[in-house]
């Protein structure tokens, strides 16, 4: 082994990453080269020195503090949902079943909600007070799942017992898209809920409500921004049936220019072409001309060129 190779392998030797053959060659070289032997000793010294740095074992107090801070942050992450649901609570509990049945589109969703009660939360007694300061009848305990009991503090003098726990209640809400609260919940779900399966179900539920401005905006948003390719495609299929407008036009043009998935991009372009041809919309001619002239996809170029020809005639 040469000295250059020795130096290249020095760190690997010290950290036992060399194979048997290389290690043997390395040690043979050390025996015969004083300079490299000195370098090895220096490196060992520095390696030992670096172990003087504190082991940095987290103290139990620090770990608890980190966990509590994380749980508070997770609460804030979920607050958007909780805030909506909490504002619903008086309405949802009293929502008349007859009204739900009579609506055109019934939406039934089950979300798993959590009222997470941290050690600093309200004193709990029967009837149970939630962190919304609402009193829930004791009979509702049957619908509450206790995740974790973090403290039980009996008071010997008064006989009262203070229980701090993490609890969760599952709720099922029924309503229709005519209800603005249902609509708001679904719009937020399709735009921001982490689970793609839930977003997909939500998209299906929103199809019938595209005339509502907030729903329309949410569907267009999903078509452009959902991280899931299948979702963007499904949203695209939904918006094709929507009333045309400048927002939809621009969103489809943006998809034609920026969409990464070829299938979604092509669907957006075909939607533009179909609208242009069916509605004789000549405002799209410049965009279609650009795609006909520059697009890397031959099918896109041909399709757009044909559409432009149909719209402006032989002048193209």
């Amino acid at each position: 082994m040469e000295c250059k190779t020795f130096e290249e392998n020095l760190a690997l030797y010290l950290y036992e990453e060399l194979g048997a053959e290389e290690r043997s060659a390395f040690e043979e070289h050390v025996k015969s080269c004083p300079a490299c032997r000195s370098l090895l000793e220096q490196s060992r010294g520095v390696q030992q020195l670096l172990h003087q740095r504190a082991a940095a074992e987290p103290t139990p107090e620090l770990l608890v503090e980190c966990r509590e801070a994380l749980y508070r942050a997770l609460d804030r992450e979920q607050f958007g949902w909780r805030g909506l649901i909490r504002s619903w609570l008086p309405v949802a509990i009293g929502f008349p079943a007859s009204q739900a049945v009579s609506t055109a589109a019934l939406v039934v969703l089950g979300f798993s909600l959590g009222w997470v009660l941290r050690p600093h939360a309200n004193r709990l007694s029967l009837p149970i007070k939630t962190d919304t300061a609402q009193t829930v009848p004791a009979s509702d305990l049957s619908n509450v799942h206790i995740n974790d009991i973090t403290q039980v503090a009996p008071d010997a003098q008064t006989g009262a017992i203070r229980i701090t726990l993490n609890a969760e209640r599952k709720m099922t809400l029924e309503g229709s898209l005519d209800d603005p609260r249902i609509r708001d919940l679904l719009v937020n779900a399709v735009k921001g809920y982490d689970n793609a399966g839930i977003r997909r179900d939500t998209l299906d539920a929103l199809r019938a409500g595209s005339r509502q401005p907030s729903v329309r905006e949410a569907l267009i948003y999903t078509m452009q921004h959902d991280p899931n390719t299948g979702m963007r495609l499904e949203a695209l299929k939904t918006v094709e049936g929507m009333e045309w407008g400048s927002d939809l036009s621009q969103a489809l043009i943006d998809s034609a220019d920026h969409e990464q998935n070829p299938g979604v991009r092509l669907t957006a372009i075909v939607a533009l072409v179909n609208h242009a041809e069916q509605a004789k919309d000549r405002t799209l001619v410049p965009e279609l001309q650009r795609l006909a002239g520059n697009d890397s996809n031959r099918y896109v170029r041909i399709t757009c060129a044909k559409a432009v020809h149909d719209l402006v005639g032989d002048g193209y």
Partner: protein
Amino acid sequence: MDGICLELAGKVSAEGSRLDEADEHDLIRRAQHGDRAAFEVLVRLYDREVLRLAIKVVGSPDEAQDLYQEAFLKVYRSIAHFRFDSRFSTWLYRVVMNVCLDHLRRQKNRSEVQAPESEEGQPEFFQTLADEKPGLDPERSVQGKEIRQRIGTALSQLTPRERMVFELKHYQGMRLRAIGELCGTTEETAKNCLFRATQKLRVALVDLA
């Protein structure tokens, strides 16, 4: 959520020992469906290691707490995208690595790493960490503090990636192949980082060795 999460949580000792793979996958799937309790069990399985690594990287418990939170929030927001094509721990530590690397890159603008100045009556920063030699006499304690500061300065001279590779190799004992995987690069690149890191540290600290 039902008693299953409690049962699984009961399998985790105070030191965060691991569940078997099937139980862990069950927790992950529950977390992916929005089960907050399942996610918190996952946190408790791995957070001690995460915090240990963060403290190693930044040297400050306060900053490490921020990195801890940032890493787990990223995991929480993206756990739906975990596809079980790697171990969850690998995926998690990759998130932690990227958070730490980003922090080191931001910190690189500083000229040197300094321990926070202690306020009057507050314990010295390095004494808030577990000390392997609690019985040092004052003179040795001062020397030890100076050595640790020199080490901190030397480590700050490494690039963020060199620093991460070195921390994972020297203090966590990870294999270079695993480090390469965590960093989203090759074992060869990890080797080169380790080579450069040890070379720089030797030059900076050889007079103390």
